[in-house]
């Protein structure tokens, strides 16, 4: 289910590779594609795009998707609540932002920049975007992932291809960081994963939730859910680069760090 075919991506992005941005450089060691100090992507800034998906009734929804890379150590991803039909900032939109820690950068054979990331804590910022003004609200803990810390056995690649002033990228979501590998998950299920009473009690509680959660991801068709920060799960093949939805570079300000109204609506 989770496997991805890089060869497929290579075919899809042949034309993009040719015009890959010259502002990217490759001046450090890249011996380990996952962990290294190479600074490959350095066109820092905030990028935004709109992404569309259909729900189980075949109705179209849209949300705003922003990515902020200000330094070689952190990525901030921001999502708006989904809007039925076309994206618009003529209404109040709730947002959720979360920080990813960069552990390495590498360049794939097809010139994709891979930024490997982890989440060190469940740090998410909620906000409201209203009439061109962003206001951060108090953080609300996600009851689904109360069992911090995040799975330290997971890192997630943010795959970027730059073309002119636009970026194409896969969609990374915070729940990716609690995802056990398929073999690990199966092993946990097979053996019950209990060594002590304390662990058994804890894991029992966790996996009753996690199993249901994964089932939801596996079998449900796309649909918007009331918990708006879950909805990207509904986007089919979200780990593939969205060729139809490019990021454009934005001009944020101190008072408007996530300028949704600058994003071109597809």
């Amino acid at each position: 289910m989770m496997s991805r075919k890089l060869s497929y991506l290579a075919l899809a992005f042949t034309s993009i590779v040719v015009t890959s941005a010259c502002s990217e450089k490759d001046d450090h060691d890249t011996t380990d594609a996952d962990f290294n100090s190479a600074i490959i992507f350095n066109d820092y800034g905030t990028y935004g795009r709109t992404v569309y998906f259909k729900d189980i009734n075949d109705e179209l929804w849209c949300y705003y998707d922003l990515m902020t890379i200000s330094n070689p150590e952190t990525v901030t991803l921001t999502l708006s609540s989904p809007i039925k039909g076309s994206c618009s900032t003529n209404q109040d939109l709730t947002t959720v932002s979360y920080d990813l820690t960069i552990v390495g950068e590498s360049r794939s054979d097809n010139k994709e920049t891979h930024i490997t990331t982890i989440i060190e804590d469940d740090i998410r910022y909620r906000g409201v975007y209203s009439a061109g003004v962003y206001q951060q609200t108090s953080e609300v803990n996600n009851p689904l992932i109360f069992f911090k810390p995040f799975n330290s056995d997971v890192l997630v690649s943010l795959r970027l291809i730059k073309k002119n002033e636009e970026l194409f990228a896969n969609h990374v979501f915070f729940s990716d960081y609690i995802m056990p590998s398929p073999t690990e998950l199966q092993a946990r299920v097979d053996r019950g994963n209990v060594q002590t009473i304390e662990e058994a009690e804890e894991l029992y509680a966790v996996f009753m939730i996690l199993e249901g959660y994964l089932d939801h991801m596996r079998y449900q068709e796309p649909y918007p859910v009331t918990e708006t920060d879950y909805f990207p799960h509904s986007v089919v093949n979200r780990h593939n680069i969205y060729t139809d939805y490019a990021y454009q570079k934005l001009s944020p300000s101190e008072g408007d760090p996530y300028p949704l109204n600058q994003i071109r609506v597809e």
Partner: protein
Amino acid sequence: MSAKLLCVTSLVFNTASADPIYAEDFDAALPPVPDTVDGTSVIGTWLLTFTDLATYEATDTDGNKSVALVKAVGRVYSLVQPKATYDVESQEYIYDYSRPQPLRLSCLPFDDEDGTPDTPDTWENSYESHNSYYNPSTGVEKPTGTLSVTFNGDGTVQGEGSYTQHPAGFSGRFLRDNLISHTLTFSGIKISDTPSIADNDDFDTTINAPCFGAIQLKKKRQNITATSTEILPSYWLESNKQTLTPPYFDNYDFYAEVFSAKEGRTYIHRLTLK
């Protein structure tokens, strides 16, 4: 491999030391297996002596690397417990002594930085524990280490593992020490047939932890070596606590005193084999 096992076995059966073992001698031979234990069963409490050699690396923003080598030598008490299954209907745990669980090694110095081991559900006298990490956006699962453990059927055990970099050992991209790799070797003896520290008639103890002991760490960076002694698990020294009496082992026994300035009290971590 067989020569190595013979060598370790001969060390294990050396005559017990009459003097307490302090940090500088943590690699001394263990006492013999007590006559009271059933060496044919792996389930019980074990005393291990281990050595771990680790490499850390920090990189500055110009790409210059700084390497630190850490040698950890120590002793820990560890458990092999039976499989416990929670029965939802009776709300009780059912123990299966035919299905031992792997040694509890969570207090070892680099264990938290290796990721979660994937251990087999069933084994008899040996097992391999594998570590890896997973990238859901590429679907790639990358192995990072294997620990091989062999129980000899006579109350002795050997283990050997090597590990490469894992997300759990990541501290920071620049100017922070990241664990790059380490190798662990240990040998041990069984000291009790009961797989518990606190609930064990063989022990007189103040301790309730499945893995504990002490290590001496030698950290070398650019020809400068720093030596320290720590008790395990590391949380015993959290929150402004300091060691009053350095940890020591005496035959099968352990002792350390830790003072908490914040709480104004002394913690005694003591285990005595009756």
